[in-house]
C-alpha cells in the first residue's frame, strides 16, 4: 500500500482548515457528502454520515448550522471554545507562537471560497491552512518541517480543545473533525 503523501496530508489539513475557519455552507456540505469523505467521517463519529446525507439542508438548517458555529466559536461564552491558540496556550507558548504568526503574516494568500477577513495568525483555521501550505510545498526541506510546526503550533492545546469540543457540541461533523485533527497530528507511517 502506498504512503499518505504530503499533498494528501496537505489536503486533509486544508479540509480541516475550511471546517474550522467559518460556518459550513451548502457547498462545503455537498463536498462532505461525497461517499469517501462521509464514510471516513462516519467512522470518526457514528451518525455523521446520516447527518450529512439525510438532513434536509434547507435555509432553516443552514441557519441552525451557522448559529451553532457562532455559538461554539465566535461568541464562545458558554463553550469556552476560542479558535485562537493564545486562548489555550501558556503565555510563553503563545509568545513563541507569535513568531510563527510573523512568518505567516508575510505569506501570500490565495483566493478562497469564502471571505476569511484579516484573521489573527493564531486562529486554528489559519494554522491548519498554513500547515497545508507547508505540506504542499515542492521544497522537500520545507515539507519535512510540517510535523515539527504542527507539534509547536497545535499539539500543546488541541487535545484540550477537542475535549471541550466534545463536551460542548453534539454536531457530528465538528466531533468528527476534532477527532480527525487529533489523529492526523498523531499520524505516523507504519
Amino acid at each position, binding site marked *: 500500500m502506498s504512503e499518505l503523501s504530503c499533498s494528501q496530508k496537505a*489536503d486533509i489539513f*486544508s479540509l480541516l482548515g475550511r471546517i474550522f475557519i467559518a460556518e459550513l455552507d451548502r457547498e462545503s456540505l455537498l463536498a462532505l457528502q461525497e461517499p469517501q469523505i462521509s464514510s471516513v467521517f462516519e*467512522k470518526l463519529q457514528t451518525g455523521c454520515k446520516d447527518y450529512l446525507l439525510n438532513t434536509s439542508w434547507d435555509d432553516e438548517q443552514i*441557519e441552525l448550522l451557522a448559529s451553532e458555529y457562532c455559538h461554539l466559536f465566535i461568541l464562545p461564552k458558554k463553550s469556552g471554545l476560542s479558535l485562537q491558540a493564545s486562548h489555550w496556550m501558556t503565555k510563553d507558548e503563545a509568545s513563541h507562537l507569535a513568531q510563527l504568526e510573523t512568518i505567516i503574516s508575510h505569506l501570500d494568500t490565495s483566493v478562497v471560497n469564502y471571505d476569511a477577513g484579516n484573521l489573527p495568525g493564531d486562529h486554528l483555521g489559519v494554522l491548519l491552512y498554513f500547515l497545508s501550505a507547508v505540506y504542499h510545498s515542492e521544497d522537500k526541506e520545507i515539507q519535512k518541517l510540517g510535523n515539527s510546526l504542527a507539534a509547536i503550533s497545535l499539539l500543546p492545546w488541541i487535545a484540550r480543545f477537542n475535549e471541550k469540543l466534545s463536551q460542548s457540541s453534539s454536531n457530528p461533523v465538528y466531533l468528527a473533525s476534532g477527532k480527525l485533527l487529533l489523529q492526523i497530528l498523531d499520524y505516523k507511517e507504519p
Partner: protein
Amino acid sequence: MKQSNDNKQNESKLSRRDFLKLGGALTIGVASVGLAAPLFRPLSGEQTQQDLNKFISTRKKDFVDYTRARAIPTICFGCTNHCGVIGWVQDGKVRRIEGNPLDPNSLGNTCSKTHGMISYTYYPERLLYPIKRVGKRGEGKWRRISWQEAIQEVGDRLKTCRESGHPERFIFHYGRDKTKGFTKRFTNAFGTPNRLNRRAICSSNRRVPLMSYYGRDFEWETQDMENTKYILNFGSNPMEAYQGGLYMMHRIQKARVDNGAKMVSFEVRPTATVNCSEEYFKVMPGSDGAIGFAMANVIIDEGLVDKAFWERWANISLAEIKEHIKDWTPEHAEKLSGVPAKDIRRIAIEFAKAAPHCTTMTARGSAKHYNGTQGDRGLRMLDVLVGNVGRKGGLCLTSGRMWGGGKYGQDGLPSVSQPKPKPPKPKAFTPGTAAYEDLPDDIKAKVARLDPQWQKKYQGELATPAEYPLSWHWYGMKVGQLVQPYIREGRAKVDVYMSYTYGAAYGYPEAKVCREVLLDEKLVPFHVAIDIDYSEHAALADMILPEATSLERWDPHSTNCYGLVPYTGIRQPLVKPLGEAREIQVIFRDLARHIGGGMEQYFDYENVEDFYKEWYKNVSAKIPGGWEEFKRRGIWQDPDRAKDYELYERPVPEKELLGSTVDPETGVISNTIKGKKRTVGIMMPNPETGEMEAVRGFPTPSRKIQVYDPVFPLAAKSAGLPEGDPNGNALPTLFTIPGFDELKEDDMILTTFKWNVHTQGRSSQWEFHAEIVHTNQLFINTRTAQKMGLKTGDEVEVTVQRPRGLTYRGGINEVVGVVRNRVHLLDGVHERVVCFAHAGGHWEHGAVARAENRESLPIKEPDSGLKKDFSNEIWWSKERGGTGNGAPMNDVLPINPSPLVGGQNWFDNICQIRKIS
C-alpha cells in the same frame, strides 16, 4: 467506564487505509470546490525555510525587534485623556506603546492603560464578524453574516425610516465617540436630532457652571498647574481618573516640588490625589458648595478680593454678592460639611494670598449632586474673587477645544474642519412639522411652556427634554439616563436604535430599566450595535457590527492644552482591522450610499485617509513636508504662539469690528457672522489710559463673567419648577440635598469612583489590568464598620432608597435595589460614606471580565507535562478560590438627574448596610 471510553476511542480510530481514502478523495478533487481550497500558496524559497527552521529550533519568546519594528504615532484611546502615543508595529501587529514626546499635554508620558489598547485589539474573544440574532432578543443566539447582508438590512431599515417622514425615529446612542463630529455628519445627513450621548452620566453638572460663568467655549477649565502655588481641590482626582488627569498630575507634582505649591483636598475618601495633598479634609457628600460660599465670605470680609478684576469682569457688584452669601459662613459650612470653621477661614486666606498663582479644581466629586450645579457656581466664584482667571498660575481658559467648531481665542490658528459638503442640521420640532405633531399632548404642553428661545430649538424629548432645558441650552448634552425611561413612557417613538460603543445596559444607573426597554421589541423594533466587543448592551441587539479598534482607525484629535498653547493631533491606523472589523467611517459610508436620497454626497470618499487629509489640509499646509510629515509626527503645535493667558483682554480683530455695533448700555459689540448676529467683544477702559477699547471679553451674552445668570430662573420657569426652587436661582445658591437633613442614625451615603487602571466598564476584559484590579469591594470607614461589627471581607447587603426632590420618580418611598458585596475597611473614608468602583460584576465582555475559570488552561492537567502558568490564569475566579469580579452595583443606583441640567447625581444615594451572617 474507562474501558468503555477507550473502546469508543478505538472504534473511531482511523486506519492508514482510511487516511489514504480521505487524502485520495481530496486530492483527486472530488471535493475541492467545497472544502479543500487553500488559503495560502504553497511555501517555497530558502528564506522561508530558514525562517521556519529558526522558529522551530530557537523556541524563543517573541520580542520587539526595534531594528525591524516601525514606530507610528497615534492618539491613545485608553481613557478620555487621549494622549499622543507611539505604537511599535512589527509584522502587522502592535507590540508596544509608549508616549509621544511631541504631545504638549502628556509630554511623552503615558499610563498603564494605554496598553489596554493592545489587550482589546488582540484578546481572543474580540468580536471579529458582523453577527445577527437568530433566537429571541437577549437569548444569545447568533449567526455570522456578511457585511453585504448587514449593510443591506440596516440600510433598508434606515431608508424606510427616513422615507417615512420621521427621521427622528432613528436613535443613535453613543458611549465614547471621539470622532469629533463624524458620527454627527451621519445623523445630520440622515435628518435625526437623536444623536444621544452620555454627557449627563459624566459631567453636565460640572460643565454648566463653567459655561454659565465663562461661555460655551469653556466647558472645561485648564488650570495653569505648573505655575501655581495653591490648589483648592474639591473632590477631583487627577492622580487617578480625571479628564486631563495625566496632563495635570505631573504638572501638579512639579509645582509642589519645584514651586512649593500646596494642595488642599476636600474629599470623601483617600484618593491618590488626597495622598499628594498637603492637607485633606473628609467632607460630607454634597457639602463642597457650602465650603466654597464660606470661603467667599472670608475672602470678602478679609478684604482679599481683587477688586479691579471683579469690577471689570464680574457681571454683578461685590456688594450684592456679599449680601447674597452673608449667611453661609464658615460655621454654617462646618455644620454641613464637618470641616472646622477655623480651617475654612485659614485656607481661604492662604488661597487668596497666593493669588493670582492659585486655582480651584472641581470635578465630578463636587458637582454630581442634586445641589452640585449651584454648589459649583459657588466654588467658581472663588477664582473670580481673587482674580486668578486666565492668569499665570491661575484658573486658565484656553482656546476652543474644537478647532473649526469654537468661536473664541482661535485667532491665527489654522482652521481644522470636516470636508465639505457638510449636511444641514436637523430641523426643530415646530408646530406643523410631522415630528411635532407626533408628540403626545402632555409633551406638547411642556413644549408650550418653554421660553421662545428654546421652543425654536426644541427637537423632541430625547435630544432636548423639555424639563431639562439647561441640558441643551449651550449645546446638546442630553439626559442619557432618561432615554430608555422616556421611550418606555411613550415620549419618543423608535424605528431603529443604533448603539455605538455604548454600555448603558450595564453601566447606567438602574441599568435594569435600560435592559427591560431594549428587550421590548414593541418599544425598540430594531437594535443594531456597533462595538469592538460583545458587551451587555450589544448582547441585547438584533445585529452587532464589529468596529475597528483605536489602533486600527482614524480620528481627529483636539483637546485643551495644559501648556496653554493649542495643538492638534491625529489618530491613525497602526494595523489593519482584525477579522472583518471595519472603521466607523467605512460602515457609515456604506450605509449612507445604501440609504441614498442625498445622504451619499456627504460620504464621497473611497479611502478614509483621504477624508482626514482634507480635514487637516490647513494644518498640513503649515508643516514642511505636509500631511506625510504630520502623520510622522502625530501632533502639530505652533511653536511661536504665545500662551493663552488673559484671552479676554485680547483686542477684537479688525475684520470682526468692521460693520459691528456697540450696545451703548453694556458696551457689548455685535456683528453679523455667517448670516447670524453674534457678540464678538466688549468695550472696556484701558487700565492705564482709561480710553475705551474693543477687547474680547468672555464668550457669554454679557461678554463678562456671569456670576449672575438669568438663564437659571428662565429655565426653572420653562421646566415648571415650583416658584422659589433654589435650582432656578440666578445667583449661585446654597441648599442641601433633599433627604440629607433627615438622615437616620444608620443611613449611609453610597458613592462611586473609578479605578486608576480601569476605564469605566469598558476595560474589564483587559487581562493585565484586570489582574491588578478585578473587583469592586465596598470601602467603609474603619470605626463605622467596627460599630457595625464588620471586618474586611465580610459580606453585606446594601439597600438603596429612591431619592427625594425633583428628579426621576423623586420622593416615591421605595427601594431602588438591594445588592450584596464585601466590605473593605479604610480609615480615610468619611464616616457616613460607603464607596465602590462602578466597574465590577460584568456578565459579558468575555471570560476575563466575568472572572470565569478558563477551563481551557493547562492547569487542569497537572500531569500533562505543561508548565503551570499562573500569569495566564484567571486566578481571581471564584472557582480558583478568588474574589470573583465583584458586584453589579449600577443596578441599584437610582436614575437621578439633576433638575434643569440633567446630570446624574451619582453621589447622593441614601442606603442602609446590613451584615450577612
